[in-house]
Each structure stands twice: as C-alpha cells, then as structure tokens.
C-alpha cells in the first residue's frame, strides 16, 4: 500500500529575481516497508524533495499525498499533527535538542504525542538499548560523538512509530565505519519493525545498502529500481 505519493512535483526557488528549478515534475511512490535511497550529485534536489515529502515546504506545482491526504489542503496545525504522528526525521547535522539528554530527546516526540509517562519510559529504554546507547541515556548531545548523536536522532525518529522516516544525508558528517553501522541499524529497524525509510546520500557505500534506489539528476528522476 502506498504511504506517500508525489505527482508531477516541481519546485522553483526565487532568489533575487533568479529562478532555480530544483525539481522538475518528479513522480515518486513509497510503499510500506521499503528501504529506499535517494541519491545523485550535490545540488540535484534531494533535500528539496525530502522537504516537500515531509510537509516542511510546499511544491510550486504538483501534489504530495500522505496516506491519501493532499498536503496542500492541510493547515499548519494539521501538518504539525501529520509530522508528529506519521513522519520521523533524521537530519545531516543530527539536530538534537541541546538542552535535553538523550533520553529526553527521545521522549520529546512521545510527550508531544501524549504517550503516558510509564509507557514513554519503557519505550525509551527499549529503543536506546536497541541503538546501543543505554549507557548514554543521561548524556546531553554535546557529551556524545557524532555517531552517537545520530543514533539518538534515529531513535527519536522512530520511537513515535511513524509510517515513514525521512533522513536527509544522515551519514554525511560521519566517518565511513560509523556510517556503515548507522545504516545497518536503520536496516535492522526496517526489517524488524517494518519502519519505512527514505534517505538521501551521495556516498556509494551507503547507496549500496538500499533495497530500492532512486537517482535524481538536475531535479528529475533519472532511474528508479531495486538495489543489490
């Protein structure tokens, strides 16, 4: 079943009178349980596309539907709700809340969702153990390495049980060994919990881990097919 569909989506940025067509009539359908990479050279439109799919930005043309709902018809508050309940995000720069500990960062999403505190604690303990950070639960982001922070970010992204996790270059700031471990973790979560992932990268090593590969070039889908 399709979770997310993009129909002929285009995005044109206007900066000081100069129009940049970052995306040009992109069609993309994501099915439940997929583990998909979005790749292509820098500037090809990966971030732009992820932002549109994550209801963080509006397309200039075309339509994005999440669970059958047209994002263009949602109010700001409804988009907040959709992001909160149906989507998880992992960013290149980790972007954890710096004043919160690892545990609090993971609990944050569930607190917004209104999950009762006992359940919150249990789920946080479980997920932190799963990403291998049980010992660091009370540490703040600045006390952790980049790889550890990104694991917390992944935990935060999936703990709210979203239908889809969007990850924009999650490994770009990590060394290749750590990047590989993070991808293995995401893959495991995908396999064991059925979390659907769409992540972007231009790292061939990371591309190799995906089961479906979508290649963008100059704002268009150049190829879309199964991986190794």
């Amino acid at each position, binding site marked *: 079943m399709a979770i997310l569909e993009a129909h002929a989506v285009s995005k044109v940025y206007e900066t000081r009178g100069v129009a940049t067509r970052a995306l040009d009539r992109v069609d993309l359908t994501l099915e439940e349980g997929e583990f998909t990479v979005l790749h292509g050279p820098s500037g090809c439109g990966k*971030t732009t596309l992820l*932002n549109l799919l*994550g209801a*963080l*930005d509006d397309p200039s043309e075309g339509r994005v539907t999440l669970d059958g709902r047209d994002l263009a018809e949602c109010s*700001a*508050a409804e988009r*907040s*709700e959709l*992001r*909160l*309940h149906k989507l998880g*995000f992992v*960013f*290149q*720069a980790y*972007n954890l*809340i*710096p*004043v*919160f500990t690892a545990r609090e960062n993971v609990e*944050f*999403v569930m*607190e*917004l*969702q209104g999950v009762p505190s006992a359940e919150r604690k249990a789920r946080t303990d479980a997920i932190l153990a799963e990403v291998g950070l049980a010992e660091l639960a009370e540490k703040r982001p600045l006390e952790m390495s980049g790889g550890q922070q990104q694991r917390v970010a992944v935990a*935060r992204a999936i703990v709210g049980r979203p239908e889809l996790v969007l990850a*924009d270059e999650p490994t770009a700031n990590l060394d290749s060994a750590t990047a590989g471990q993070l991808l293995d973790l995401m893959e495991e979560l995908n396999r064991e919990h059925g979390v659907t992932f769409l992540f972007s990268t231009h790292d061939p090593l990371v591309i190799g881990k995906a089961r479906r590969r979508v290649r963008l070039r100059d704002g268009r889908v150049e190829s879309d097919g199964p991986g190794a």
Partner: protein
Amino acid sequence: MGLELRLAWRNVWRNARRTWLTVAATVFAVVLVVFFVAMAAGIHEKMIEDSVRVASGHVTLAGEGYFANRTLEQFVTLDAGLQHTLDAAPGVRGWAPRLVGFGLVSKETDAQGVAVLGVDPAREASVTTLARRVERGVFVSEDAPKGIVLGERLARNLGAELGDELLLYSEAYSLETAYDLFTVVGVMKLPEPSLDRSLALVTLADAQAFFVYGERVSEVALLADDADAADQVAAGLRGALPGAEAVEVQTWAELMPELVQFIILDDAGMYVLLVILVIVVAFGILNTILMSVLERTRELGVLLALGLRPGAVFRLVYLESLLLAGLGLAIGLATSIPLVLWFQAHPVELSNELAGAMELIGAEPVITWKLKPWNPLGSVLTILGVAALAALYPAVKASRGRPVDALRSL
C-alpha cells in the same frame, strides 16, 4: 505545558551569564521601584500625618457650613448620643472635640489677634500631637483651670513668660462681650509659622465657659488607622449620623487640597523616572529573548519539524521571557521587601542642615518608608506586563519560522 516549561527553563540557563545580567537588571529595577515608591509613600504619609496631627485629624466632623465660614454660628452639639456614635464608629482610633474662636490677647499694652483653641486634654492626645509640642512649661489641663498655652512666636511677640497673666478678649456666642484672665502655663513650638504666631490653647471647658457655648463644639477631629482609611471612616460616619443633625464630615484630603496636589505632583515626578527604569528593563528582556531566538533559528525549526505546533513555539519563547522576568521579580522582591520593612522600622533622621531646612517648611526632619500592598503588587504586574510585551515580537518571530528555512542552513 510541563514539557514546554521544562524546555523553557533549560533554555533560560543556556547562556547563564546573559540570563544573570538580565535578571540583575530586573532585580535592580524592582528594588529601586519598591524602595522609592515606599519612600515616597512614607514621606507623604508623614506629611499628612504631621498635618492632620496639628490640624483637624484624618476626618473632621463639624456643624453645617463650618468649613466655609468657621464662626461660632456653626457648631455640633456634643451630647451623649453623638459621643456614643463616635465611640462606636468603626476604624476610628481616637476623637477629640475642639472649640475654635477668635479674639485678642493682651499683656499690659501689647495685644495680638489669636485663634483660641479649646481642647479636651485627654482626648486631644489621642488625636493630635499638640501636647508633645510644648517646649517650656506644661500642656493645658483640667486640674489647672484658666491655663493658656501659646505658640512660641506669639509668646515672643507678646513678651509673655510662663506664669504671666494675660487678658483674653472676644465676643461670646451670646453676642455679649467676653473677657477673662488666663495664666501662661506653657509655650509650644508649631511647625507652621502662621499657627505659631497665632495659636492660643485653653481647655475645652474654659473655652465653652468663655464663649458661653454650653455643650457645643466647633469640630470633632477623628484619627483613622491611616490616611488611606479616611474616606472609609468618613463614609461610615456619614451613614451613622442621624439625618436630622445638621453636620458635615470632611476628610483631610478635602480640607487640605493643596497637600493632595503636592503629593500628586511629587508622585508624578517619581513615576516618570520609574517608567524610564521599567523601559530599560523591557529592552533588556527584549534584547535577551530576541538574541536567543535568533541564535536558535535552526533549533526552533527542528522543533517545528518534529511536530511542535507554532502556537507551542510561541508559548515556549513567551515562557522563557516570563521566567526571566519572574526570576528577577522573585529576587527583587525578596531583597526589597525586607529592605523597605527595615527602613520602615528605622526612619532616617536627617543631619542638621537638612533638618533646619525641613523644619522651616514645617516638616519633621525624618525620612520614613511605608510599604503599601499595591507597591510590590504593582511592581510585579508592571514588570510581568513589560516582559509579556517585550516577548511578543521574538515569540511571534519564532512561531512564524518555517521548518524548512531553519533546516536549510546546513
């Protein structure tokens, strides 16, 4: 709410030095405001107190038309019924009947016009401080009939000494000529020069006999708990008096409008300074919150991306500002209230030169403080209001941010 508060509190402490600086500025402002408002209140209350305690009390009861004419024609009959009403009136600390007449006093060939004030010595002490102003000799007393106490300047002008006999001369209520001999028993120093030059005190009984006034008195001076309570006491009294009695009740503010004017002007000058102070605090808070919002564009965008609603982001920034102000207020009040209470208990006596200047204008040379409830309350509301106003722009700015813009700057 719990989550937002926790996040706001942690954010407040991210830049502890900046937070403490803002808090310090708020504390400084709160302390200054509370201290100076209390000082003004204390000084004004003292002025009122000084005035009512040489004059006619916080509230004065008199015959109809007395306040406009001040002659023997307007009077109050101090019968048992009225005495009972006065004793039973709520909020009255004391009351004293007076007879006010005018006449000439002469010693040998010197004569001076005087205001003759007949007082009940025991009751007078419960309302005014006249007895304490006696510099030489004693106050008038029922035990020593036909005693008279003179203002210091009056005594000097007459060349009168303690023990001298004076002739008091006037027209009685009966319109007959009234004259009698009185012995100088005391000389008192009155702050108001015109009073000092003209006041002659005798007992109420002597005055009533001299003016052939019977049970009548000119006015009854009442002391309330404080100046602010005067209106309430006056209203209570107006209600308690039987309608048939042709009397008037006035408060110190109605009797001394120039004093009220002076206080208003004095307060106005002070409030201008305080407003400037509060504006400085407002900009301090605005600056701190705006900087913290601008520094966190990315982070606030992440919160929005994770599903925090724009309204919650607004509240978050707002809470941070209120926490900042609240912290300053808490410390400011914890400092200023004990400080003011201490000064309230320990009035500051002024040094010689200043004291002389103040005595010239008829004020006692002390500075007093008075903490009224609306002082800290008003400070709290003002600072919170200012913080709420100052946070508006940064909070709106933060909540209007779009997650994508915030995440872009990678």
